[in-house]
């Protein structure tokens, strides 16, 4: 049985190799299944909308673009296999993925096979500190967001701060970085620093414990699901302290989960929402997405995946090639202030996104996200 399977596989592989050389292939690696399925599936949806529009307009360099999606299951081992698979499919570049530990498992594979990797949802600092030539990210790093968050906290005149994270790479990273920045700032005392368990529902115990520490502001660095529950339960407790979240809380479902009353007054840091961008592309994109799927994109990370795709296809069009070295060099040196959905994109020498991406938002009594000055 094993023998015939191998034979069949080899024939298929050979055949597919012969049939190649045609469209420009771009890989998408994301969590289509597993606990982050909502992110991965939305990433795919975003790319589907973009590639449809691109191909309708003639593709890139006269060739159609094809997106090859591979599931990384939200797990490093599956991701490594997904990466290997994409590496054999002749892709020029890969967009993804979500989750720093998962991305990290695939970095070496893409680097060794000279495939450009543009990450949309992995903010751990060390990913771009390894000197990998083909690695870029459209999402900023934890330290940048921490600076903005700390700045906002200082500006609000906070004296006693509670920081809550969910032990994930992203949330803990942001929490640690923020604590580090604030350590240098006199006047802000951190009275509580702990984590909750994600994907649960009852956070009253944690809220009670936090309340006992008497903070006058709370910074929660986890995801919108838990944030919504925290806000709702805090209100039920009768506690009226202000909360702020990181960009993972930026999701319209936050207001749905918390209820408009509880969500009023919630701050968060995030890349500018598409609705706040004056650019025609952003408005049009959100409209096309909503038309195809019935609702606008919910997660900022899927929008960042879309930006990775657009940056890449733009680079291919400009350099008129799919050669990874030329593309990498273009992205490093010549791509300046590219008008992406999430703002202007340029890359620094490490592959990180340059520029002040983060802004502070506040939710008003209508449940709308209002940009703060």
């Amino acid at each position, binding site marked *: 049985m094993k023998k015939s399977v191998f034979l069949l596989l080899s024939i298929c592989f050979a055949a597919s190799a012969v049939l190649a050389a045609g469209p420009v292939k771009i890989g998408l690696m994301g969590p289509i299944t597993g606990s982050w399925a909502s992110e991965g599936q939305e990433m795919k949806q975003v790319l589907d909308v973009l590639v449809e529009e691109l191909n309708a307009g003639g593709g890139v360099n006269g060739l159609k673009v094809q997106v090859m999606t591979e599931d990384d299951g939200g797990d490093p081992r599956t991701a490594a296999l997904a990466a290997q698979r994409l590496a054999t499919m002749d892709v020029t570049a890969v967009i993804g993925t979500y989750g720093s530990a998962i991305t990290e498992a695939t970095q070496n594979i893409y680097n060794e096979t000279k495939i450009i990797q543009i990450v949309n949802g992995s903010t751990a600092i*060390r990913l771009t500190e390894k000197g990998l030539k083909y690695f870029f990210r459209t999402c900023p790093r934890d330290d940048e967001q921490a600076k903005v968050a700390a700045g906002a906290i200082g500006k609000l005149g906070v004296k006693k701060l509670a920081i809550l994270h969910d032990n994930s790479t992203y949330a803990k990273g942001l929490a640690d970085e923020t604590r580090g920045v604030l350590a240098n700032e006199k006047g802000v005392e951190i009275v509580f620093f702990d984590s909750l368990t994600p994907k649960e529902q009852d956070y009253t115990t944690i809220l009670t414990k936090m309340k006992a520490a008497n903070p006058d502001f709370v910074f929660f660095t986890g995801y919108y699901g838990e944030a919504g529950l925290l806000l709702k339960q805090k209100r039920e407790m009768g506690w009226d302290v202000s909360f702020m979240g990181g960009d993972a809380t930026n999701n319209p479902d936050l207001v749905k989960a918390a209820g408009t009353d509880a969500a009023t007054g919630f701050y968060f840091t995030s890349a500018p929402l598409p609705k706040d961008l004056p650019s025609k592309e952003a408005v049009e994109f959100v409209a096309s997405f909503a038309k195809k799927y019935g609702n606008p994109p919910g997660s900022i990370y899927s929008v960042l995946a879309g930006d990775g795709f657009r940056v890449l296809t733009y680079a291919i069009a400009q350099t008129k090639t799919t050669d990874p070295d030329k593309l990498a060099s273009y992205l490093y040196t010549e791509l300046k202030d590219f008008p992406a959905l999430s703002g202007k994109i340029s890359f620094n020498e490490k592959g990180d996104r340059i520029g002040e991406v983060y802004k502070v938002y506040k939710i008003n009594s209508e449940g709308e996200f209002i940009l703060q000055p």
Partner: protein
Amino acid sequence: MKNRKLVVIAGSAAVLAAAPLFLDAYWTDVLNNIGIYAVLALSLNLIVGHAGLFNLGHAAFYAVGAYTAAILNTTYHIPVLALLPVCGFTSGLFALLAARPIIHLRGDYLCIVTIGIGEIVRIALINNIFGITGGDNGIFGISRPSVFGYVIRSPQQFFYLIWIFAGITVILFHLLEYSRVGRALNYLREDEVAAEGSGIDTAHYKLVALVLGAAWAGMAGNIYAAKMSIISPGSFSFWESVLMFAIVILGGAGSIPGVLLGAFLIIGMPEVFRQFASARMLIFGAAMVAMMIFRTQGLLPARPRKYRLAGLPSGGVET
């Protein structure tokens, strides 16, 4: 009969050995994954199949081995392969300490306790216990294994490392099956009361099975860490334990060829089903149920033992 068996084994070994030559990196890596899970399942087979202990927390032993390798390698720069026995030792020791108080528990209780142990280990890893496990980020920069200066880096190279290790495991476990320990375990699984009555210290042998199985899982963890060069707690969840358990049962508990076949199917199947994207796991779940219903004893169940009795014409009595 025996000759035919040898031919089959030799034939499959030959095909396997030649596989990296005409498979691409991706499929070779799939075989690598299968290889690691085969070793893990064989180690679990010792516990579940031979000793009859429900262990749904095997990923904890796997994790202890992987993290031992990762921490010692990144902190003290000891070559990864040299750490193999150390990883086996720490996993085995961990199993001994964790299992000793609970070994006498009845089957299903032991099951839930093993789930608990698995979860405790995972939570400890995520919370960066003692400050050495790196939290959810895990540990990175684990060096590649090297054998006498030859560095193993590509999937093809790892293939031979993993499958040679798997081969050694199969041979050793096969020898164990027919050793005194193996016979004791078999007896214990068949009928614990009778075994005790025959003078077998069941608690002792159960512990032996657990420690050995854990030690082997620890070594598999070492190889995994070396292969991925980064490890994080996400790879050692309850789901992983379920996967290993499923391989053992689906393949046929107590049967080495069964377990190997199980590994091929369970790890290979989701890869073959990749084009179904989000329905992949749905099909996998349904397949698990179906396989159990239509072939309860597993695909290649363990054959009852045969012993040759001298002087009898028919050549064997089944026990």
